[in-house]
C-alpha cells in the first residue's frame, strides 16, 4: 500500500523524526509496505506533515536497519528480503539466545520462575494453530525477555535488537505458512521453561538451540517457495 497524504500529524518537532521512523518501520515489518516499493521523500514528508529533513533522517536510520535501500540519485525503496542475510541473521540470533539462556538459568529468581510458569500454562498451551502462531510472534518475546533481563547484558540486548528487524519482517511474511510448524515445536519451548525452572542450564540451552534450528529449517523451506518477496542474490543487498 503506497503512502497517501492523509491528516497532518500535529506534534512537537522533536518527536516527529522518531515518529516517522517508528511508523515506517512498523509498516515495513508488517508487510504493509512491500519489498521493492518506492519511498519518495516528498510523499513521506506530505504524509506526516513534516519537512524533508526528519523524513530523510528516518530513511537513513531504516537503511542502517537494513530495511530500506537509499540511492542518492534515484530515491529510496523498501529493501527486498535477502535470503542469505536472513539465514545469517538467524545464525547470530541463535548464538546470542542460546548463550543468554544457558548463562541466565542459574541467575533466575523465584519471580522469574513464576513468570515462566504462567507463560507456559497460557501461551504454550494454546492449540489453535493460527492463534498460537500469532501469540508466539508477540508473546514469545516476553518469554525470552525473562532470560535477557535477568542476564542483564545490555550490549547483547542492543546486538539482538539490531538484528531482530530482519527476522521479524520475514516472520510476518511467512507466518500463515509457519503456524503448523510453530505448534509442532511448542514442546521445545515447554521444555525450555521446565529445564530452566529445574535449574538445568544445559538442558534449557539445548532446547533453545533445537527450537532455533528447527525454526530455521522450516522458515527457509517456506522462504524458498516465495521467490517474489526475496532476493536470492548473494551479498548484503545494499
Amino acid at each position: 500500500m503506497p503512502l497517501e497524504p492523509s491528516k497532518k500529524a500535529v506534534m512537537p518537532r522533536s518527536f516527529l523524526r522518531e515518529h516517522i521512523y517508528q511508523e515506517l518501520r512498523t509498516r515495513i515489518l508488517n508487510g504493509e509496505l512491500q519489498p521493492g516499493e518506492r519511498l519518495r521523500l516528498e510523499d513521506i514528508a506530505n504524509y506526516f506533515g513534516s519537512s524533508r529533513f526528519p523524513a530523510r533522517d528516518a530513511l537513513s536510520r531504516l537503511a542502517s536497519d537494513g530495511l530500506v535501500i537509499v540511492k542518492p540519485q534515484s530515491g529510496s525503496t523498501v529493501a527486498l528480503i535477502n535470503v542469505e542475510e536472513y539465514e545469517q541473521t538467524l545464525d547470530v540470533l541463535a548464538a546470542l539466545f542460546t548463550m543468554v539462556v544457558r548463562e541466565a538459568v542459574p541467575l533466575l529468581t523465584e519471580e522469574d520462575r513464576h513468570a515462566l510458569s504462567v507463560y507456559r500454562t497460557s501461551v504454550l498451551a494454546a492449540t489453535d494453530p493460527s492463534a498460537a502462531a500469532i501469540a508466539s510472534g508477540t508473546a514469545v518475546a516476553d518469554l525470552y525477555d525473562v532470560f535477557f533481563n535477568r542476564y542483564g547484558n545490555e550490549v547483547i540486548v542492543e546486538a539482538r535488537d539490531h538484528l531482530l528487524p530482519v527476522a521479524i519482517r520475514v516472520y510476518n511474511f511467512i507466518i500463515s505458512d509457519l503456524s503448523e510448524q510453530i505448534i509442532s515445536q511448542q514442546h521445545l519451548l515447554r521444555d525450555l521453561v521446565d529445564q530452566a525452572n529445574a535449574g538445568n542450564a544445559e538442558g534449557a540451552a539445548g532446547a533453545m538451540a533445537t527450537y532455533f534450528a528447527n525454526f530455521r529449517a522450516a522458515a527457509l523451506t517456506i522462504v524458498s517457495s516465495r521467490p517474489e518477496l526475496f532476493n536470492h542474490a548473494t551479498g548484503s543487498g545494499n
Partner: protein
Amino acid sequence: MPSSTAPSGEPRALLRDQVFQHLFNAIATGALAPGSHLNDAELASELGASKAPVREALQQLREIGFVEIVPNRFTRVTELNPSHLSKSINTMWVYYELAIRVGVPALAGDFEVIEEVMAEMREATRSDDRPAFSATMYYYFRALAEAANHGVLLRSMERLTPHLQRTLAPRPGLIQPEQIMVYLERVHERALAGDVDGAAAAFNELAATPRANYIRSRTASTES
C-alpha cells in the same frame, strides 16, 4: 561559513578521518588517559587542521563513546567503564564461538590465513605486545567468519570493536596473553583437524572464566 578545505589543501572529510584515527588510537592505547580534557583549538593547531574537521572528529568519537562533550564547558575522554567492557567482551565471545562453528568447516583445508594470523599471535605473545595480541586475536576469528562469507557475523563483530579497542589499555586483572594462548593453541589445533566441536569446546573452556566472572558480578549486584 567555514572553508571546506584545510590550508594543506586536503579535502575536509579526509582530514576529519585522520584526526579521528589519531585521537582514536591515542584513546584506545591509553596515551590519552580517561578524564583528559580536549580543546578543539589546541588540537587544531597541534594537528595542523582547522577547527571544523576537529569538531567533526570529536562528534564521531562521542558517538562511539570515547569522549563526552558538554557544550561550552568541556570535552573530555570518557572514563573506562569496566562493566561495559566486560559486557562487550562477553558478547564478542559469542561471535567468536559462532565464527569457529561456521568458519572451520568453510576453510576446507585452506589454512594459510589462520596459520599466518596464529604466527602473529604467537609473536605478540612472545614480545608481550598486548595491543598486537588483542588485534590478532580478533583477526583470527574474523578470518574464520570471512572464510564462511558470513556478512551478518562480520558486521556484528565490527559493531563491537570500538568498545573493545580500549581493552588494549593496560589495566589490572586482565588475563595474560600467554594464558589465553594455551586455549587458543588447542582451538587452532582442532581447527586444523577440521574438528568443529572440539575447537568450539576448547574456546568455551577459555570463555568459561570471564563468563563466570560476569555471573559473579551479576549475583553480587542482585543480592546487594
